[in-house]
């Protein structure tokens, strides 16, 4: 197992190098001279030329990237054009808020989706099955930002139960958390249902039933564990969508995370800040994928056996 984890960890390194290079390359296509943007309109050509040299802008792109990466490893992500503050400082001060929102949503969606999917499968073609699958179908079809607006309209403006926007305690987490969770809950519930349906038709489940084990034990002890493998795959696949979704959710609820920081930096043409935010998202995404892979190894004995 340790061999498996080490192998996955090592495989992460080229991915992170590739991702950072790709993002750095794309962002380098952004128009405007960084030196000019940092110094402002009234800088003299000499000042600009000096800063360009200091920043290494006269070097080829690959060298610039190398310098950026070298600094990145020491926690330096450059300077914001707008605030002139260190990008790393602003990104790291907002990052926990994004993690809280995404983490809460992941938790909510898994906790709601698993029982929903399992019950729908066990009671296939019942009213419960039909209703929950219609809800799940709506869930995967509804745009996150629109659902968020509807939640604000009903629970914040009409009923006044929760604040409209911002982050101030648990109460303000509920609406954005639900907005972000709904789509993922729906996707996880749909997969759980279909993999559960497939599992309970397997021969070994028939054997367990024939042994006379009570139905609830058949489901919880024997079927669930095998049915969960596709569910974990889907949870892993959902994480990318979750990050894109969190950008939209943060924008709807004025949530002080890096998604909203990124959007406001794009409209302010603050390239280093945008680069920092996207890198933060991508690196987090790679690390979470790694964690999902490792969990997968634990749950699926076939993968575990390969690395014994």
């Amino acid at each position: 197992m340790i061999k498996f984890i080490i192998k996955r960890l090592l495989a992460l390194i080229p991915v992170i190098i590739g991702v950072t290079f790709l993002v750095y390359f794309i962002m380098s296509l952004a128009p405007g001279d960084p030196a000019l943007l940092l110094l402002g309109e009234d800088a003299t050509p000499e000042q600009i030329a000096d800063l360009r040299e200091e920043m290494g802008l006269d070097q080829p792109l690959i060298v610039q990237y190398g310098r950026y990466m070298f600094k990145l490893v020491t926690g330096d992500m450059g300077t914001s054009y707008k605030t002139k503050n260190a990008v790393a400082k602003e990104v790291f001060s907002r990052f926990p808020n994004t993690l809280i929102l995404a983490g809460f949503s992941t938790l909510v969606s898994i906790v709601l989706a698993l029982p929903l999917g399992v019950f729908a499968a066990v009671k296939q073609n019942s009213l419960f099955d039909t209703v929950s699958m219609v809800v799940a179908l709506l869930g995967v079809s509804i745009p996150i930002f629109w659902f968020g607006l509807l939640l604000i309209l009903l629970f914040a403006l009409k009923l006044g139960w929760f604040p409209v926007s911002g982050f101030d305690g648990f109460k303000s987490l509920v609406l954005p958390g639900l907005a972000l969770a709904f789509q993922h809950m729906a996707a996880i519930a749909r997969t759980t249902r279909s993999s559960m349906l497939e599992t309970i038709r397997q021969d070994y489940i028939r054997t367990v039933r024939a042994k006379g084990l009570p139905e609830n034990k058949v489901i919880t002890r024997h079927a669930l564990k095998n049915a969960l493998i596709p569910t974990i795959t889907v949870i892993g696949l959902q994480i990318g969508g979750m990050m894109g979704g969190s950008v939209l959710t943060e924008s709807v609820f004025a949530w002080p995370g890096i998604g909203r920081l990124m959007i406001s930096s794009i409209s302010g043409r603050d390239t280093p800040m945008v680069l920092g935010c996207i890198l933060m998202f991508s690196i987090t995404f790679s690390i979470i994928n790694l964690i999902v892979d490792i969990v997968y190894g634990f749950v699926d004995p076939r993968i575990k056996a390969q690395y014994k």
Partner: protein
Amino acid sequence: MAKNTEKVQKSKGQFAEAWVRLRRNKGAMIGLSIFLLIVMIALLSPVFFDYETEVIKQDYGSVKLAPSSDHWFGTDEFGRDIFARVCWGSRASLAIAAIVTIIALSIGAVLGSLAGYYGGKVDMIIMRIMDIFMAIPGMLLAICIVAALGTGTEKLVIAMTISSVPSFSRIVRGAVLTVRNSEYVRAATAIGAKDRHIIFSHVLPNGLAPIIVQTTLRFATVILSIAGLSFIGLGIQPPQPEWGSMLANARSFIRDYSYMCAFPGLAIMITILSLNLLGDGLRDALDPRLK
């Protein structure tokens, strides 16, 4: 020659069978009908509404009117008829999604076939590059590209295409891999058929099922992403009507004029819903084993 006609008949039979199964699927038929209706609305909007005078012209005599028989969906803060804008808005979403899906599918098909068919180094290089693209969440990759290139329809197409290619090439590669080692492909190789002929006449048609399903679902994803990007101001720019950017405008008036938020969102949801229903139905119809 004889070999070719035989093959065509066989694959025709396979898809005719799938069509029969699809027609029996109520959800899929509802989805297909709704989607065709939306396509009709998109095509016929210019017949019913004049773009200059009814869709983008501001009329300060009729701002923020609630839905009525004159304005079915009400009017927005510039006095524009929301019904006309929602109908016209389908054009941008569908057209961009169609272009993106076609280009991304073509590029993905070529890359995926090369990787799957030749294997080895070709496969490794193509798929490692795709892995890197896939290591950035699709929406963020699109945001990153738009942030660098700037907004505009053609840049939106570029951004959405680049973020769609990896999933297509992966699915095509998978399809090619499963077919490649089958006996009829080996037979074709044995009688000296050219690689290109084998890929396009034998491998792709037989691995088509998952590709069709993926295309339907990707079409839905692209529509959702266009709306999302427009909602945060990085997609279609006003005054051109687009569902996401209409919602972005409407949210400032959500407290007192909530109807403005209702219809563009509903339009997105119904479109995505119809594609999801169709996609689910296609998956069941094309691969009966999965049922």
